[in-house]
């Protein structure tokens, strides 16, 4: 369990983390979200004792990280943003070094090294030089290092950044697996990632905690209006005419496509999306205009995220993530 109370970190005149307080309970996966520069890494560095705080407390299972650092650090495994690896060593040598620094010796050390290499799936590369490994394997060696000493809490700073899609999926699976026996806190600026694997999501922006809840609740509480996307063979005029006769539509966007079809994006405040899509279907059918595609999309966490971070005065300038596309599509009809 981690308690963070009124944590503040100031760099010169720049406030990186401002009066942050939250509690992390054992046995769950926590996603730490925020735009770049929101203070995620700073918070994690403070939690793991790599950085001092300007004020506030961090307690790991009751041990203050500033006052009893040795005891507190024993309970944490940390993977910083850039995996801290010695490129000239092999993963095995590296793990042995970290294990010894964590106070493991002899048979216990060898046993733990075997178990973490198996967990991180790096047995095949354990005798190659770290500098020759791919980024995905380096990340895994970094995770293996964090697992040594069997800490209760595992903190991973942006573990999937810079990996290819397959590696990202593998690392996510690994995080899920770790969540079964450890408390995992990982930071990310990719929302779908957190949405998929976290039990709880913390969103911070400009060093402040703006939301802390489970993914479903966050979606529910923040956004009501939803979206329906249509593709039809009707012309723009016909489409606007048809849509005029249907209530429950808040906003309409017509997007003519190159192949002569018309894309329409509707925003609605109605709770019953199915009823609305039925009305749409029959309205178009009545005019002998086929609906070629219709998809429903509920408010995604991404919108929650944007709203929250914009609310606190900062535009989240996230590059479009390719994997958002797939998950956005709701149940197509």
């Amino acid at each position, binding site marked *: 369990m981690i308690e963070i109370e009124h944590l503040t970190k100031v*760099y010169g005149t720049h406030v990186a983390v401002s009066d942050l307080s939250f509690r992390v309970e054992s046995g769950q996966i926590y996603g730490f979200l925020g735009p770049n520069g929101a203070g995620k890494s700073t918070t994690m*560095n403070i939690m*793991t*004792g*790599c*950085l*001092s705080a300007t004020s506030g407390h961090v307690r790991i299972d009751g041990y203050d990280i500033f006052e009893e*650092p*040795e*005891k507190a*650090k*024993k309970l*944490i495994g*940390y993977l*910083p943003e*850039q995996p*801290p*690896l*010695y*490129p000239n060593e092999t993963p095995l040598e590296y793990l042995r070094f*970290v294990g010894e*620094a*964590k*106070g493991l010796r002899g048979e216990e050390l060898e046993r733990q090294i075997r178990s973490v290499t198996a967990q991180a799936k790096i047995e095949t590369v354990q005798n190659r030089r770290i500098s020759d490994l791919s980024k995905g394997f380096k990340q895994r060696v970094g995770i293996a*290092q964090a697992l040594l000493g069997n800490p209760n809490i595992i903190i991973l700073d942006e573990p999937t950044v810079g990996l290819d899609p397959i590696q990202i999926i593998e690392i996510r699976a690994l995080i899920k697996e770790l969540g079964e026996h450890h408390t995992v806190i990982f930071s990310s600026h990719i929302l779908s990632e957190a949405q998929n694997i976290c039990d709880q999501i913390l969103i911070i922006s400009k060093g402040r905690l703006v939301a802390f809840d489970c993914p479903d609740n966050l979606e529910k509480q923040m956004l009501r209006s939803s979206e329906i996307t249509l593709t039809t063979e009707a012309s723009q005029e016909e489409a606007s005419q048809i849509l005029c006769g249907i209530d429950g539509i808040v906003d309409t966007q017509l997007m003519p496509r190159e192949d002569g079809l018309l894309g329409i994006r509707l925003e609605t405040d109605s709770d019953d999306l199915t009823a609305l899509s039925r009305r749409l279907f029959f309205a178009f059918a009545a005019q002998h205009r086929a609906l070629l595609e219709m998809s429903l999309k509920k408010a995604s966490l991404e919108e929650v995220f944007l709203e929250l971070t914009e609310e606190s005065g900062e535009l989240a300038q996230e590059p479009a993530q390719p994997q958002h596309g797939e998950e956005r599509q709701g149940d197509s009809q």
Partner: protein
Amino acid sequence: MGFAAVLCNIQAAFSNFEFVFYFSSLIFVIIVPILTMRTIAEERKQKTDQLLYSLPITTTQIVLGKYLALLVVYLIPLCIISFYPLIFSLFGDVYLLTSYGSIAAFFLMGAAFLAMGIFISSLTDNQGFAAGITIALILFNYYSVSLSEYTSSTMFGSLLTFYALAIVVGVVVRVLTKNDALAYGVSIVLLLGIAILCFVDSSLFEGLLPAMTETLSLLERFNSFVNGVFDMTTIVYYLSVIVFFLFLSVQSLEKRRYN
């Protein structure tokens, strides 16, 4: 080292092994920076220092671990060299006591340079820079005495030199802490202190600079061992230099958490 031994003991047929150390002490300019330049600077560059900070070990343990590792590397050739006097003694009279006394002092002097090197490495994340500064410092140790002898030894001359030094200290403080007020403060306090001292006892400053550099130079103090005197004050001085610089290195690492 072996080369120096050949030159000194075999070619010139001196039977004093301790002269070898006097000749070969310049190798510190090369070996100390090579050994120390990457110790902490490279950790910082590779960001592996984050690992060290997050491990359940103290900063003191980190610094001591690194320092002991360096000492072992430095001790291995010295162990081999310590057989030389024995070998030479088979062929003639060798003053074994002074020889081994010098070896011990030589080891401690090198250890003091290594501690300095570690501290300098902890100040930067650039290996080259760390090596450069370390070389400059060691060379300064070699030549400070002869350099200071060139400065005027009159009261007024050495007063001026000390003023210049006070300003240099201020500049160094400014560079290290990036704090103008502190730098000016240190300089002004030093300048005032010198002026007051000068006012109280003006004879104090005559020939003070050469005397000071002689006391502070690690190498100058080593000469007494070469001359066959086992000088305990020097041993204590070396040990305190080691402790001082290791302490500074720990502080420098600790400070990293507060920036």
